[in-house]
Structures are given as structure tokens and as C-alpha cells.
């Protein structure tokens, strides 16, 4: 029999293992719990050869493989979140067996418990503000200037005006992003600002000017969403998009990152 390894998805507390019976992780493998007291790691067994250093290094470069594993990883975290609170682990955290995972749980117990206390009963909601540069520019397009008789001069003048109207559009979009953020913070326990997303990867229309995650008490999610909707469409050519609720990925960090 070939060697196996243990892939960790999340740490949770007080989870009934029966609830995970139908859940499948990476490689379509069944998911099980590695308990340590009231804590448990949600794991599955994977072939070591597929998840050793060399294999991972090669495979992480392949977007199709990455997508598959990312979706499987997230699927398990999501399933745990539906039944309790998950502290999601970073993708492809792999140990040489369940015993090693139990050790990690023991060593990190205080930290895991503290984070679970903080995150239980709370969800992460993603908020993105997009601006459609074409639409916003069109709304503020400069009037055609009198021709000066010199095509070169006219050209430069037009370029300058176009640039100015685009700068205005960006400034207004950035301002909207700040306003949306300020409007939502009172409804949230905490916030993390992520880098704006690459439209090529997300496939979203327009430019992403705000990409934030809010930690919201489960009871406040309706009010939070209502507030976000109220601000949607306040500026022509912009839109607000909500995602989630997510497991608290953005808040399951040891240190608070900048921004």
C-alpha cells in the first residue's frame, strides 16, 4: 500500500461527525474528524505521492488543478460552517498522518479556542464595489472643443480632457468605495480590506474599487445586506456586490494584517 498523508481543511469545535458523512474533499475523498478534547480537525486522507512537496509545487502552477482543489477545500469548509464554526486552514496544509494533526491541535489549542470564541455565531460577508469606466466616463464626457486648426494641438487637448474626466470618474468611484465602507462598518464586528480583484480572474464587469470582508453577527446579516442595497446604484456606472455568507476566512488569522 502506498503512503498516505492527511489534508487539513479546518478546525472546529463540538461538531457531530455524522453531519459530514456525505461530504467529499479533495480527490473526492471522504472527510473525517481528528479530535482533541472538544476541538477537532476536519481532514481527509490523500495519497502522499500526490501531495508531497514536489507534486504540490508542480500542481499549484496549474490553474485547473488549483481550481479543483480550491473548490473542494472551500466545499468542506462551507459544509462545516453550515453545522458549526470553522477555522479554515490555508489551502494544501498537509501532514504525515492523523497523529501529526492531533499534535498540531494540542499545540495550538489555546489559540484555536480563542479564535473560535471570537468567530462563533459570526459570518463573513464580502462586499465589492465596481465601477464601469466606460459608463462613468460617458456620463462625464467633455463637450467637443472648438477646433484650433491644428490637428496635433486638438489631439493633445482632447487627450487632456479625456484624462481629466477619467480621473474624475475614478475619484468619484474611490469616494463611493470609502462611503460604502464607512456605511457598513457600524453593522459589522470587524473588517478587512482586500486588494481589488483582477477582472480577468473574476470575470466581473468593470473595475473593482472596493474589496472588503466584514465580520457580522449572524443576527445582523439582514440589516447589513439592507444597508448595502440601499447604497447600491447611488452613483451611475457603479454597483455593489455582496457575496457569502462565508466561513470567517478573512478573520481566521493570527495577526491583523495591514489594510
Amino acid at each position, binding site marked *: 500500500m502506498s503512503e498516505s498523508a492527511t489534508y487539513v481543511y479546518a478546525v472546529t469545535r463540538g461538531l457531530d461527525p455524522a453531519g459530514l458523512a456525505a461530504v467529499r474533499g479533495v480527490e473526492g475523498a471522504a472527510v473525517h474528524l481528528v479530535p482533541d478534547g472538544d476541538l477537532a480537525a476536519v481532514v481527509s486522507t490523500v495519497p502522499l505521492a500526490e501531495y508531497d512537496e514536489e507534486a504540490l509545487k508542480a500542481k499549484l502552477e496549474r490553474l485547473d488543478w488549483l481550481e479543483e482543489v480550491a473548490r473542494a477545500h472551500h466545499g468542506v469548509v462551507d459544509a462545516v460552517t453550515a453545522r458549526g464554526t470553522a477555522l479554515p486552514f490555508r489551502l*494544501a496544509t498537509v501532514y504525515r498522518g492523523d497523529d501529526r494533526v492531533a499534535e498540531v491541535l494540542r499545540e495550538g489549542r489555546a489559540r484555536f479556542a480563542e479564535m473560535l470564541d471570537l468567530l462563533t455565531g459570526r459570518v463573513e460577508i464580502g462586499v465589492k464595489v465596481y465601477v464601469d469606466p466606460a459608463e462613468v466616463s460617458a456620463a462625464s464626457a467633455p463637450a467637443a472643443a472648438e477646433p484650433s486648426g491644428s490637428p496635433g494641438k486638438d489631439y493633445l487637448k*482632447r487627450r487632456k480632457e479625456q484624462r481629466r474626466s477619467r480621473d474624475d470618474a475614478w475619484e468619484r468611484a474611490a469616494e463611493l468605495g470609502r462611503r460604502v465602507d464607512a456605511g457598513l462598518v457600524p453593522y459589522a464586528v470587524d473588517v478587512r480590506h482586500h486588494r481589488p480583484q483582477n477582472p480577468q480572474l473574476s470575470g466581473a464587469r468593470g473595475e473593482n474599487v472596493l474589496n472588503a470582508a466584514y465580520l457580522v453577527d449572524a443576527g445582523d446579516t439582514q440589516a447589513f445586506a439592507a444597508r448595502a442595497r440601499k447604497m447600491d446604484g447611488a452613483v451611475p456606472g457603479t454597483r455593489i456586490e455582496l457575496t457569502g455568507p462565508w466561513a470567517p476566512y478573512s478573520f481566521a488569522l493570527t495577526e491583523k494584517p495591514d489594510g
Partner: protein
Amino acid sequence: MSEPNLWQSGGGTPARTARPYGQGSSANLADILERVLDKGIVIAGDIQINLLDIELLTIKLRLLVASVDKAKEMGIDWWEHDPSLSSHAQRHGLADENRELRERIARLEAGSGSEEAEETAPRKGTR
């Protein structure tokens, strides 16, 4: 735990399907990658995938940005869309202006010795 109608808009039109979790299959890949690669608990596994590798990877993914498409999206596409460069009449106008300037420079460079000949030559001659 249920989140009924979380994304239901006030008017009754679902802005987003109410979907308390279980969105694993349909959530946006960019949103998922952002979280599973960049966020979450980071503890060294026994299998050392360099965290640097993952950072490089996300950088690589982000670098898809640094392309012509992105430039276009940012509006750096004037060579394609500017009417003064794509319209025929305007292009001729610019070309004429350039030719006049070139001719003037040629005359200046030729110096005073040939000025006379230059002056007597037809303006748009067939030299």
C-alpha cells in the same frame, strides 16, 4: 443555521439567490482563491510547500493584470479609439501638418545657399 432571504432586495426581486452556505460549487473562483490561498489559518504542514510559492502564485495570478487587455481597460487604448487617429480625414490633416513641418526643416537645414532654389520650386512639386 438559516439566513433566509439574506440577499433578497427590498422590492422582492432576488438580487442574489438566498443561499446560506453550500455555495461551494458556484461561488466565484476569484473569491474562493482569494480566501483559500491568502486567508485562513497558516500553520506549517509536514509537507513544506513554501508559503513563498503560494505568494508567488497569487502574484502570478494577479499579474494576468499586466497585459494589453488591462491597459485597454484602464483606458490606455487611445491608439485604437481616438477619432483623430482612426478617422481618415483627421489622419490626413495630421500627416499634412507633419509633411509641412518636415519640408520646413529640410529648407532650414539646406541653409541659405539653396534658399533661392527652394523658394522657386513649386510648393508641392515633383522633385
